[in-house]
């Protein structure tokens, strides 16, 4: 077998580069604990309205006793429910999603709030929004001919202002 010395050097460079990229991934994964949304939790999409968590009355933004925020939302053709939510900036926010029908994807441009919503499974993702402003929350997975029209509006408010307006614990948004 014949391996050119130049070729050998290049292979070392390639392996080094690959190791560097993987090192970066391991660092963010194990040091910062950053993972994609992966909670492998199943749910009966056809009976969401009868479930405790995703029943219609229960959807929306909830302030937890520990100061974090939980948002329970449902995706269905062609909208996210509730249609409008207001969230505080600089606060860890946990979204929990379920689909009532087909596959959807939810994404807020310019943020890393992104997850697929697969019927039969609950998607969960925790993130923070540093910049106040209005964001479209849009469906990014083809879900049918009305897919283009599937979006909600999220307003991210400065944290103090939001807290003043939502003093209660555990209640839904008015």
């Amino acid at each position, binding site marked *: *077998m*014949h*391996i*050119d010395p130049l*070729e050998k050097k*290049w*292979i070392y460079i*390639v*392996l080094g*580069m*690959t190791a560097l*990229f993987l090192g*970066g*991934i391991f660092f*963010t*994964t194990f040091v910062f604990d*950053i*993972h*994609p*949304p*992966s*909670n*492998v939790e*199943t749910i*009966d*999409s*056809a009976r969401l309205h009868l479930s405790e968590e995703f029943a219609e009355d229960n959807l929306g933004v909830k302030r937890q006793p520990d100061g974090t925020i939980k948002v329970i939302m449902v995706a269905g*053709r062609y909208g996210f429910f509730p249609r409008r939510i207001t969230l505080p900036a600089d606060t860890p926010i946990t979204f929990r999603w379920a689909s009532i*029908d*087909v*596959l959807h*994807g939810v*994404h*807020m*441009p*310019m943020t*890393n709030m*992104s*997850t*697929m919503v*697969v*019927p*039969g*499974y*609950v*998607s969960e993702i925790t993130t923070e929004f540093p910049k106040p402003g*209005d*964001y*479209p929350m*849009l*469906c*990014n*997975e*083809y879900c*049918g*001919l009305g*897919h*283009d029209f599937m*979006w909600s*509006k999220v307003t991210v408010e400065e944290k103090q202002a939001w807290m003043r307006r939502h003093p209660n614990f555990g209640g839904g948004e008015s």
Partner: protein
Amino acid sequence: MTDTHTRQLSIWNFGVAFSAFLIAAFMGFYQVVERSGIFPALESAKVYFASVSSHGVLMAYVLTTFFIMGFGYYTAATALQRPIWKPVLAWAGFGLSLFGTVLAAIPLLTGKASVLYTFYPPIQASSLFYIGVALLVAGSWVWCVIMIVMTHQWQKENPGRPIPLAMFGTAANVFLWLWTSAGVGMEVLFQLIPWSLGWRDTVDPGLARTLFVWTLHPIVYFWLIPAYIAMYCFVPRAAGGYLFSDEMARFAFLGLLVFSLPIGFHHLYMDPEQAAGWKLLHGILTFMVAVPTLITGFTVFASLEIASRLNGGRGLLGWIGRLAWGNPMVLAAVLALLMLILGGFGGIVNASYALNAMVHNTAWVPGHFHLIFAGTTVIMYFAIAYHLWPRLTGKALCNNNLALIQLWTWFVGMTLLSTPWHVLGLLGQPRRISSVTYHSLLTLAWQPYELFMIMGGALLLGSAVLFGYILLKSLRNPSPQVDLEPNYADPIHPPRDMPAWVENMKIWNVIVAGFMLVSFGIPILQFFFLKTYDSVPWGY
């Protein structure tokens, strides 16, 4: 000179492949125009998604499968220097694939299969669509059998000799394809067809998605390997030189076979039905597949440099000017590698475990894969067609300059199309929308890019039509092709004392099986021991 069956099989397979390509090119142009929102009269979600579905299926399944079969028959016959084994069987496989394509085309074009090319259960297409796609794949398996038998027969008659490189790459691709198509094959056979025929009421979208991604990434290497075969086996000689390393080429093909299969989960990073650890494992393996690709880039550039220096090229970079730029095969290889480098960097972002959240399902993704597929892969398909068409039909290429113009316009068009796509993705524009309806300041920033995309699309359509014109015109060329011999490059060092395990495909298949068991075993089994809830069918 090849025998009649080889030539006819290749010509007919190429004919179907490139007809599908031309139809799909028109659809692609329509899509960028519709999507831009500049022409309100064109806006129709129904037509748009039927078009996107057809474009995807025609380009990704029909063009590729038929092209690869046609190229494979040529490679097998010329590299192994033996006639096609059981030509009647080969024609039957061709017929089966063509019948499947027509069957799938009917619901696609009438809007009864607008489920895009990745199927998306529980949205349900007409059962004709799933059956058609299954038959297209089944036909290609016939081709696989013929390729394996021919390689095996050659090995038996030539004990101890290394398989000719072009056939070695083809054989690796055949095994890659058999492994690859098994995932979507199981999805279509056990889930989608029985479900669309009404034999079962529900389907598990989580399992369906997992089976689909089994196919989704390695299939890209199935499309890409013929391009690599041309880069290794045709480009060095077309450039006037020699292949830098035959041995490393073999390892690159084996690397693609082994590492491209167990890595599909980076398409599922944002999905809830698979756990983080499996995603990380697939992510690590995904980075490994960069290794054979980078080795290929090195070998091809080294071969080009050697050829240029043999022709008088001097200096650290001066040799670039002395490359055989007027040879379509050389030009295509350089342009393809440029797009592969850019597309490869995008791929690293997609494969990055956490970074993916930013670009997942945004316009970035079609930008990325158009660079790799429509750029790198298809541009090499053009070059192979220009190279083989005269050798198959016996008629010389009608005009070399037109071919060069066609390759350059394709490259410029693809750059104009995919650059805005990448930017739009970073700005958060989703892929797979037919119009922008979000009344938001953020989305206003998306608009200026649409114009560039229309220009890119127009240039690409022009280039595609020119390609079809050149092939058809060459068919009527009165001057015959003088050189009918296959044009395989000679390596600088012939492959000598290669260890036997390199050529032993059995070993490599066992290794792949082990990898697949680890990476897909439990992730698929979990659907049978978890309490899962199936989903009912939905229309589009």
